């Protein structure tokens, strides 16, 4: 029995996920106890229960069946996104303008899963090569569909997570490094050019070195790519300066919240104060002054990391980061040892998704990242996101159980 469990049951994922969800519950309890007498806590507890069932179910689904039906499931789930768009428009009067905030569930959270299933199923086909241009275009279309629908809502943060999942999957599947650089370089160049001349030059230098090392045999193409990126930098700079002042300020604040300490930067600064004042050992459970005085808006959703950061200090931060590190490195290992490509791609894609969420969310709480409203997996308050992450964890456990099958 014991060895059976060891063989098929991924204890690493199981226990890290439960531990993270537990920390999330404690944090939500602490952050919301005062105003609503723990109602949010109990609601989240209920969601953890639902998520647990969802996780186990995903673990038990036959992986082969998923692989065969991945595209069908994907298109069906796109229907869900379309439905949201249509339903929002049909209703008469005020509601037709209100958008979708009132909806209880966010299909976009679940479509992430089906998109990854479709990507993995497509890229693991024996006739598909990540180096083949035609196949690459098709793969990109797969991801472009949900992103397009989500941008219509519009939800910028969620769209970004799809891209963050897509690029590592391409890389893992064997796409050329040169291609990956072509995709991601412009974003870095554009951001750097707004920051100033020095960051711009540094990014260009790094890009130049990278391109030279990769394409030493094709100097011409490397030079073209480099030139295009330089041009992008200048164009972005010119466009930026043409923007009205208040919009320039908005962009600058997005990239560096410290520019606007009382507007968009307010949360970030309060979050930094909360975390910093936690010190090494923290102020104790339910004793964080910033948390308890509700200085930080949205604390139980996007800024949840402040709660362990303030109340349990550096120690609490290490525990949370450590748990995520275990989960993510385990994910990479899982992707490496899985014998079938479908499972391997699922593992790496989901790991990438988690990585993006963790780095951006915590990075934003400690003032290193722009404020993009995406949740911290397993910790942030919210039913749809929690259940979808637990489903993902279940799917990764499924890959583990099937890791030896070709």
């Amino acid at each position, binding site marked *: 029995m014991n060895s059976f469990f060891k063989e098929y049951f991924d204890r690493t994922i199981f226990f890290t996920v439960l531990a993270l969800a537990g920390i999330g519950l404690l944090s939500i309890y602490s952050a919301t106890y005062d105003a609503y007498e723990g109602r949010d806590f109990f609601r989240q507890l209920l969601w953890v229960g639902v998520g647990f069932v969802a996780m186990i179910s995903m673990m038990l689904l036959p992986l082969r069946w998923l692989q065969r039906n991945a595209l069908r499931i994907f298109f069906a789930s796109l229907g869900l996104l379309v439905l949201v768009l249509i339903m929002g428009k049909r209703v008469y*009067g005020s509601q037709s303008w209100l958008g979708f905030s009132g909806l209880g569930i966010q299909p976009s959270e679940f479509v992430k899963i089906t998109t990854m299933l479709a990507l993995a199923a497509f890229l693991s086909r024996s006739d598909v090569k990540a180096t083949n241009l035609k196949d690459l275009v098709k793969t990109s279309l797969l991801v472009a569909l949900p992103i397009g629908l989500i941008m219509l809502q519009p939800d910028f943060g969620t769209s970004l997570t799809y891209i963050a999942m897509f690029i590592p999957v391409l*890389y893992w599947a064997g796409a050329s490094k040169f291609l990956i650089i072509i995709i991601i370089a412009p974003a870095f160049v554009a951001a750097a050019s707004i920051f100033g001349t020095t960051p711009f030059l540094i990014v260009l230098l790094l890009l130049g070195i990278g391109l030279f090392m990769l394409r030493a045999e094709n100097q011409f193409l490397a030079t073209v790519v480099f030139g295009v990126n330089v041009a992008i930098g200048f164009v972005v700079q010119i466009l930026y300066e043409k923007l009205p002042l208040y919009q320039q300020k908005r962009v600058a604040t997005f990239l560096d919240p410290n520019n606007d300490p009382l507007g968009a930067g307010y949360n970030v600064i309060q979050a930094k104060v909360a975390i*910093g004042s936690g010190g090494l050992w923290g102020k104790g459970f339910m004793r964080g002054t910033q948390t308890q005085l509700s200085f930080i808006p949205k604390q139980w959703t996007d800024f949840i990391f402040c709660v362990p950061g303030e109340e349990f200090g550096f120690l609490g931060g290490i525990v949370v980061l450590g748990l995520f590190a275990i989960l993510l490195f385990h994910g990479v290992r899982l992707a490496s040892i899985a014998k079938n490509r479908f499972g391997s791609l699922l593992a790496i894609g989901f790991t990438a998704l988690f990585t993006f969420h963790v780095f951006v969310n915590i990075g934003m709480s400690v003032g290193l990242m722009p404020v993009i409203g995406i949740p911290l997996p397993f910790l942030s308050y919210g039913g749809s996101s929690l259940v979808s992450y637990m489903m993902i964890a279940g799917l990764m456990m499924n890959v583990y159980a099937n890791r030896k099958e070709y």
Partner: protein
Amino acid sequence: MIDDFASAERRLVIRIVLLAGFAILLGRLFQLQYINAELYGKEAEENSIRNVPKVAIRGYVYDRNGKLLVDNRPSYTVMLTPVDFDKRQLPLLGSILSMPVATVQEKINRGRKYNAFIPTRIKRDISFAELSMLEEHKDKLYGVEIQMESKRHYPTDARGSHLFGYAKEISDAQLEKQKQDYQPGDIIGSTGIEAKYEQFLRGVKGFEFISQNAKGQIIGTFDNGKHDIPPVDGLDLHLSIDGDVQAMAESLLADKRGAVVAIDPRTGGIIALVSKPDYDLSLLSGTTPPDVWRALNNDEGIPLYNRATLTRYPPGSTFKMLLALTALEKRIIDENWSVTCVGAYRYGNKTFKCEHVHGRVAVVEAIHKSCNVFFYQLMLKVGLDEWSDMGKRFGFGKQTKVDITEENSGLMPDRNYYDRIHGKGKWTQGYLISLGIGQGEVGVTPLQMANYAAMLANKGKYHQPHAVSSIVNKRTKEVRTPNVEQREVKLSEHTWTLVREGMRRVVMEAGGTGRAAKVPGIQVAGKTGTAQNPHGKSHAWFMGFAPFDEPKIAICVMVENVGYGGAFAAPIAGFCMEEYLYGEIIRYSKSPMPLEPNEPDEESVAAN
């Protein structure tokens, strides 16, 4: 090309990226929580900036002529900061505000639970006497302050109780659902268009930044308020309502129970929507004293109930046009088909009565004189399915989705309904006879009836009824208009001509039952109805439109428990249409035209 899937090099690169990310985060945490911990600790302890939300000014409501119907006026609110307040002064505060001490305590506790350091509302809209008493005892009432707020105000005679609805302090249940956008004590639209257009009316909250220490005590405004974000005013609603017609309809129904709905058939815009008895909206805006609320809820006239959209009564003879349209359009009869009315109709062993002995009547005359016998027999000829189908095409049996408030869908009986109620095959044609004159199970709301009148006026063109014609941002001048659903019930011109001519004669020709709806100098068409009611006198109906050739207003009037539609509902409709078409009542001054004596209406069914 070699297959590079998950190659060792790629695994390494991904692990390095992960490692680097975690190292950066860990380093940053170390920097914040160890190297700079003291700095941040001090900042958290000594001086923090808190943002206090500032409520925006609620949008205004205008009528179709640009007349202001709903605006705001200033009011004084008593605010109290729980941590600063000396509890021993509770009795003093209670007596000044004439509130029970327990209630004040309740409010303070609620505020404390939310946040003890920011002021919470104790009482809205205090009187000047209360204000001066508070000023007098200022030294004892530490933590109590007066805040200027705004309160809904209704400058015209139009009460619009059910139409505008009220905006009041958010309840716990509402707060629970939308706690991202609201705080305790915020005002939220709860009924009518205040509720439906809450998102637009409420505006965007602003923020004021204040400095505060870790104990939560306020030190002062931060940086002289330079960073404060002012609130953004709510958007204004422009209604299709005509404030004068609304007020006129309200006054005409003053001592009655009933409803008036008038619609502009060209657009579907609602001109007036009245339900009586009603209530004074200003009593319910802001906070409602519990005794007022109790009185409203216990009133046997149920003033909070919107009769215009929620009642479901049989339409009576106003439904005869529907049957006539069906029969003519399906070529079940032509304009010459006639029956002989001897004052009653026997079917099996039951007798169905008519109000008069009409002799030989064909369709136009049957509508004109409202002959029941004609429609009893016609109903048997047409049958349930065609009739029911036509009713649904005119919007009966389903909600109009009007943008005002909740509504009843009514009931348009069909084969499924009868099978469900009586059992399959257990009901006979005899069950249908009274449906032909709009009695029996069929149930409609006054709003559906007004829409029916508008569709008859328009020869079948349907525009979804709505009260708000545009939403205007006064600052940017941006105008948004709701999309109005449109469709058409296509019937032959011949059918429309016959049925509408019958309706015209009801008001304009001798022997018609709706003569009291006349408007001087204008051709009016309509139909009266008298809905039987087992609990007392019949409900009176009138529905119609004017001018006949180019309809600008369609109307439905329903008065509960008074008797004949021609006597009680038609005159009200006449006055409303006159006010709308002329902008004033001219019948007494410009062209004296005495109201005709009330002729007895005819229809009334006595089965058995």
